[in-house]
């Protein structure tokens, strides 16, 4: 089952914050976040395993709420380089492959 991402698109000014959500109808084992810049391959950002942990990468962090079956990606003080499409991938046990959400297109303007 494909996770659902929201919002589908967001436009920010440099320095503003954003939150991208990823929800699943099934129990989650892990959530992965990837960023894809226009015309390029998706690049891994971080992985979260069940346990409600938070992780960080530059000024990007994420949380994982196992009970709510969702993960959120927080982009703080956004930079132009944050522009791209963000994908969450999830699975419901360690052996399963990832299923990706539909992506959230983020545009950061000067």
């Amino acid at each position, binding site marked *: 089952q494909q996770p659902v991402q929201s919002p589908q698109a967001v436009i920010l000014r440099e320095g503003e914050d954003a939150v991208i959500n990823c929800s699943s109808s099934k129990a989650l*084992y*892990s959530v*992965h976040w*990837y960023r*894809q810049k226009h015309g*390029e*391959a*998706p*690049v*891994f950002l971080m*992985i979260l395993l069940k346990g409600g942990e938070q992780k960080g990468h530059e000024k990007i962090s994420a949380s994982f709420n196992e009970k709510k079956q969702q993960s959120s990606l927080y982009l703080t003080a956004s930079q132009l380089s944050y522009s791209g*499409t963000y*994908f969450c*991938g999830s*699975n419901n046990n*360690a*052996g*399963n*492959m*990832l*299923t*990706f959400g*539909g*992506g959230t*297109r983020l545009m950061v303007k000067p």
Partner: protein
Amino acid sequence: DTAVSQTPKYLVTQMGNDKSIKCEQNLGHDTMYWYKQDSKKFLKIMFSYNNKELIINETVPNRFSPKSPDKAHLNLHINSLELGDSAVYFCASSQVAGANVLTFGAGSRLTVL
């Protein structure tokens, strides 16, 4: 050295033709994948190979046939191309099978006319 490389980067062809995309990884990973990304940006897994063995074959027309001659290579052959096959095809690899970190290739954009 590119970690996951795929060729060609662009492919334009007529309906009904047969084409292949090649992928190679130099990361020493055990598992390789083919993903299809359509015009709406949905990333869907098509196939996964672990040490040359097919472990995932999602609902994909049998016109698509993957081949893995060794664990560093995974090729995709497509017969009788259709308009709906137009997409970007990404090869990826991971250390082991399962929900492992994926390293993607740069993608191969296939356009069927």
